[in-house]
């Protein structure tokens, strides 16, 4: 069921004292182990922090974006979270149509000036860079790879991948090693994000060529790549978006870290702004970072950990530029 288990119920929505949060997913489900799920976790947490109510609708057809947003807006919801950059336009239009409702667009860069729409964006390239940097220190063969479930026409996908490649390069240079440039493949087509078997087979193809660090990014396709890499001892895999230690448990044998976008935190922060009245629209740059090492914590040399920490700080602050175009 879609309603959260909070004490507050739906009847308060549209009334003076209700605080209701609606969430519209992109194509896919709130349990997609990916950005929809992260955003929904954030919405639920925000609801419980602020004593509000949260509910979602799952989009089945991109042509319904506007209609799905309208469901919440018409019902008097206070905040509507829309997930995915494909929904940017529909969200912008809705923000003009419903000036009293606040909109939070996850992964949406907002170029306009409306005060009730905030884009929650992430420098994915930085997250990719950090894990790539780690990968550059972990590899023994010097061969690292990124598998993108999804085409390079989708900016978050491309930025993760290119950031990773840059990060590996940075680590190689730092160590004075002559690694080949990190390899990457992009998968396009009808099943770009939802073909785990393709992800797995492609990971296997890399593993057979002695690649030992594999960053597998992009929905279910990427998850397939992680799960497969876990079968080869000595190989490392890196997840994406959330800490995939929890969402793809079958990958735990290889999962050193994940390139994270802290979507839930961003959503919570922005909804908090709405609640306390400081929400002002514009873009909100969310945090990125590497997930904990979990089982690998003891296996990664502490000097490497320290280096990663330093580089993370520098990349986040902008001292180190990733060189990835936005």
């Amino acid at each position, binding site marked *: *069921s879609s309603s959260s288990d909070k004490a507050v119920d739906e009847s308060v929505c549209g009334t003076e004292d209700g605080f209701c949060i609606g969430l519209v997913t992109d194509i896919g489900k709130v349990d997609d182990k990916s950005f929809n799920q992260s955003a929904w976790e954030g919405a639920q947490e925000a609801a419980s922090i602020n004593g509000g109510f949260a509910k979602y609708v799952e989009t089945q*057809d991109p042509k319904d974006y506007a209609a*799905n947003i309208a469901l*919440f807006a018409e019902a008097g919801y206070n905040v509507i979270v829309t997930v995915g*950059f*494909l929904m940017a336009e529909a969200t912008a239009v809705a923000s003009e149509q419903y000036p009293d409702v606040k909109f939070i667009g996850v992964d949406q860069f907002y170029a306009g000036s409306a005060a009730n729409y905030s884009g929650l964006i992430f420098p994915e390239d930085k997250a990719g860079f950090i894990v790539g940097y780690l990968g550059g220190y972990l590899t023994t063969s010097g061969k690292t790879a990124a598998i993108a479930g999804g*085409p390079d026409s*989708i900016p978050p996908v491309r930025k993760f991948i290119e950031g990773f490649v840059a990060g590996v390069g940075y680590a190689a240079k730092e160590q004075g090693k002559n690694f080949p440039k990190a390899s990457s493949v992009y998968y396009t*087509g*009808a099943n770009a994000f939802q073909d785990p078997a393709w992800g797995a087979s492609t990971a296997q193809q890399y593993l057979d060529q002695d690649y030992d660090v594999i960053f597998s990014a992009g929905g279910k396709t990427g998850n397939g790549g992680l799960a497969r890499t876990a079968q080869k001892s000595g190989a490392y895999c890196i997840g994406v978006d959330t800490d995939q230690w929890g969402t793809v448990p079958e990958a735990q044998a290889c999962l050193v870290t994940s390139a994270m976008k802290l979507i839930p935190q961003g959503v919570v922060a922005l909804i908090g702004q709405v609640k306390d009245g400081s929400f002002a629209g514009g873009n909100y740059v969310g945090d990125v970072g590497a997930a904990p090492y979990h089982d690998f914590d003891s296996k990664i040399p502490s000097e490497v950990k320290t280096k990663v920490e330093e580089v993370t700080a520098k990349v986040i602050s902008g001292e180190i530029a990733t060189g990835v175009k936005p």
Partner: protein
Amino acid sequence: MRFIRAWITPLIALFIAFAIGAILMITQGSDPVKAYQSLFTTAFSTQEGLAKTFGKATPLAISGLAVVIGLRAGLFNIGAQGQLISGALAAAWAGYAITGLPMIAHVPLCLLIGGFFGSIVGYIAGALKAYRGIHEVITTIMLNSIVLQLAEYLSNGPLKEEGSIIARTPEVLDTAKIGSVAGLPIGFFLSGLLALGVWWIFKKTTTGFRFETVGKNKNAAWYAGIAVKRNTVFAMVACGALAGFGGAVETLGVVGKFEPAFNQGLGFDGITIALLARANPLAVIPGAILFGGMRGAGPTMQFSAGVSPEIIDLILAIVLFFVTAPIISRILKLKNDTTTQVTSGWGSN
């Protein structure tokens, strides 16, 4: 009486499907009454809802017709999806790149261009079948992927909207947009006209007779002076043109531009609808309205009753099952022969 008989099976099928759907909802802890109430009010009772239903039904109906033409001509066109995308993209291009035309010329031109590009994809499959003997099931499956990749490339490359971060074409000009009359999308009326047209072609014209004869007995067709190969190609071209046209209507009437994700699944729903309609062009329209209405109301059902939208797929599957399986007609002792074959298999040719 014949009218009632034609409708009674589908109605009972719908009823059973909704009943099973209700049980599934209860097992998931949702309220079926609330869910169905919201479904009917949003899909069929308000002006806005009807507009949405018909809007969704439009491309489904047109691609369904494209599949019907194939079935009638003995061809199983799995390629409506690729043909539709090709038409949608071409119409988007024509809609923004061709400037200075009045609406009355621009819209038809874009539709024609969409149909034309759809027909090219159909032509490839038809010609490979007629002249190289390659089965249309292979070629149309392969072409779906090829066209999708091309569309991905074009909408992210040469045809990409300047400054856009996502892969899509610019918005089509206002002169290329199809609006609505009386609040209902014009595209839907077009699809109705097309259905009548297709029905009438098979009922009344020599072209329809040619297609159908080729579909039923290639040897007799050849013997009777029907150019089998040419008509095979021609039928696939017609399928492609129709599906491409459907894509164009979608671009000009609903989406306003081309974005790869926006047309997914339409051609495949078209196949299901064509089968539900048992290859009868007129029956495609109610089939498409059912699909359009249910698909359009999915989010509302989830909003108001918390039902996950997969229930819609299940209900549609059950409808298809009971409309086409000879259960209801046997129980009611109806003489409508639901076991007649609408497809010709694919071994014999």
